């Protein structure tokens, strides 16, 4: 998907000035409360009329003030999960879910009803109305409704905010999976850098109505490493475990990783925060950390007063984070060899 938005929209003192072009199937929008995220996607979906500008999606102009183009929302095939659930109060859960599905022409229908309902744990609610659902239940129905419309772009405004972690991490792989399998690009808003890292390829960061950063969540994460409470997230795709004696053993390049949490799927996707890596100059003896990886520093970078250390471990890369003082003391610079200690419990299974 290629999305180009050059838009202006004012609400009293608030001024949104978007001017970007972004490519990718999984786009995240990040920004503090009131920075204009919902307004931006409202314009993309065709629900909010911009003051001026253009919107192009995959080469098709959806809106152009000067060109007099304004494709109405219902013909954009952009489904939306709103910040408030906004379910149809007169319809059952089932009919809410099927609302967009039924309106999608059969050749575009790609998402099946049953499996989605299972992932969203909505089986038992199908014949209920939506007005007395719990907050999380409502949010799940809203997600399902939008996904079942098999849109050409799925927009989600904080879709996971009312969900507990377990459910959230069950829904995320499903969402990314379905969207990936059926080629539904998505664009979502979240306040969680973790969700961003898990779901987005590209992140747009807004502040006070302006795009302040654009890049891969990796870049964003590197830049925000020092600032964010979870540092930089290293991602590992480890496949099937090669052994299991209390801990799960995985091949990672020519090394082995020992991980305590079981993988959630065959993909064996794990994350590791840069903060959870401790670097040693020499091999430490008798350490509680189960993984000790030798690596060579290939680059260092600065972020909010922290030093990011990119280590090459075979063909793979690992980013660790240390404070300046430590960087100086350990004499960390490109080319140096270091040991990285990682606890087996620091790896978090994602999907």
């Amino acid at each position: 998907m290629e999305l180009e938005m050059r838009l202006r929209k004012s609400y009293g003192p608030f001024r949104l000035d978007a001017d970007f072009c972004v490519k990718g199937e999984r786009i995240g929008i990040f920004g503090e409360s009131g920075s204009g995220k919902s307004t931006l996607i409202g314009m993309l979906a065709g629900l909010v009329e911009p003051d001026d500008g253009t919107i192009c999606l995959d080469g098709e102009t959806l809106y152009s003030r000067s060109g007099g183009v304004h494709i109405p929302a219902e013909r954009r095939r952009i489904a939306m999960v709103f910040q408030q659930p906004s379910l149809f109060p007169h319809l059952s859960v089932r009919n809410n879910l099927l609302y967009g599905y039924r309106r999608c022409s059969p050749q575009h229908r790609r998402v099946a009803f049953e499996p989605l309902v299972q992932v969203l744990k909505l089986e038992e609610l199908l014949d209920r109305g939506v007005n007395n659902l719990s907050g999380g239940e409502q949010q799940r129905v809203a997600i399902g409704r939008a996904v079942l419309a098999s849109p050409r772009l799925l927009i989600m405004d904080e879709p996971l905010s009312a969900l507990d972690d377990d459910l959230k991490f069950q829904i995320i792989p499903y969402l990314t999976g379905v969207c990936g399998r059926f080629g539904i690009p998505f664009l979502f808003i979240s306040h969680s850098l973790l969700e961003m890292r898990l779901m987005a390829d590209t992140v747009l960061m807004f502040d006070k109505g302006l795009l302040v950063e654009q890049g891969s969540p990796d870049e964003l994460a590197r830049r925000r490493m020092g600032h964010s409470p979870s540092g930089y997230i290293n991602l590992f795709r480890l496949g099937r475990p090669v052994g299991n004696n209390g801990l799960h053993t995985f091949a990672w390049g020519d090394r082995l990783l020992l991980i305590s949490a079981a993988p959630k799927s065959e993909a064996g996707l794990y994350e590791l925060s840069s903060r959870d890596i401790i670097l040693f100059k020499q091999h430490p003896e008798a350490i509680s950390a189960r993984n000790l990886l030798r690596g060579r520093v290939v680059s260092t970078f600065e972020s909010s007063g922290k030093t990011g250390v990119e280590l090459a471990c075979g063909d793979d890369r690992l980013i660790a984070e240390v404070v300046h003082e430590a960087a100086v003391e350990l004499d960390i610079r490109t080319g140096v060899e270091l040991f990285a200690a990682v606890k087996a419990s620091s790896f978090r299974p994602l999907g």
Partner: protein
Amino acid sequence: MSIFSPTDLDAIGLSTKVALVATLVSLPFGFVMAYVMTFRRFRGKVLLEVAVNLPLTLPPVVIGYLLLLLLGKNGWLGHLLDQAGIRIIFTWQAAVVASAVVGFPLLVRSIRIGMESIDQRLIHASRTLGARWYDTLFTVIVPLSLQGILAGSSLMFARSLGEFGATIIVAGNIPGVTQTIPLAIFDYVNSPDGERMALALCMTAIVLSLLVLFLHEHFGRKLARRD
């Protein structure tokens, strides 16, 4: 019900028919008008609004005269209909027209109040899910303004049952043909000894509107937001 004479029974039947037909016929128009007034912006909206509310402001007798001017032999609509071999004046259809016109503003207003409270976000949601405007109309707006539609219909039905001034002018007061309950009551109260019968007919009208009220409450409860 032996207290009623055959023409009284005719009046009761006719009133029911007229009120029912007037309500049913007006419903789609009333809905469209309410929709237009609520969701569209255009010039001359106020004029339209005034036109719709006219039958409320003007005394029914005047409405009757105006309808006569319109539908009569020499009226432009009446003339057209005449050429098509249709005569409205002095038929029960005229009573329907009179009731419909007089009750229309009530219908429109009720539906509008209901429509205005529909959450805009639901309309947005349906649009992003691919519903065209008519689709949104039938699957979101109609169901969510059902309370207003029902309320408006029962208002209109009741109003039609009581409609007198305009009806008597355009339909005449012909027993067994165009005499509705209010016209029959009018005849009875104008005879020195008609009070009992007038009262009996009033009770009938009340019972009729009671029925409609029950239906309304019943459906209203059923059709209200699902749990």
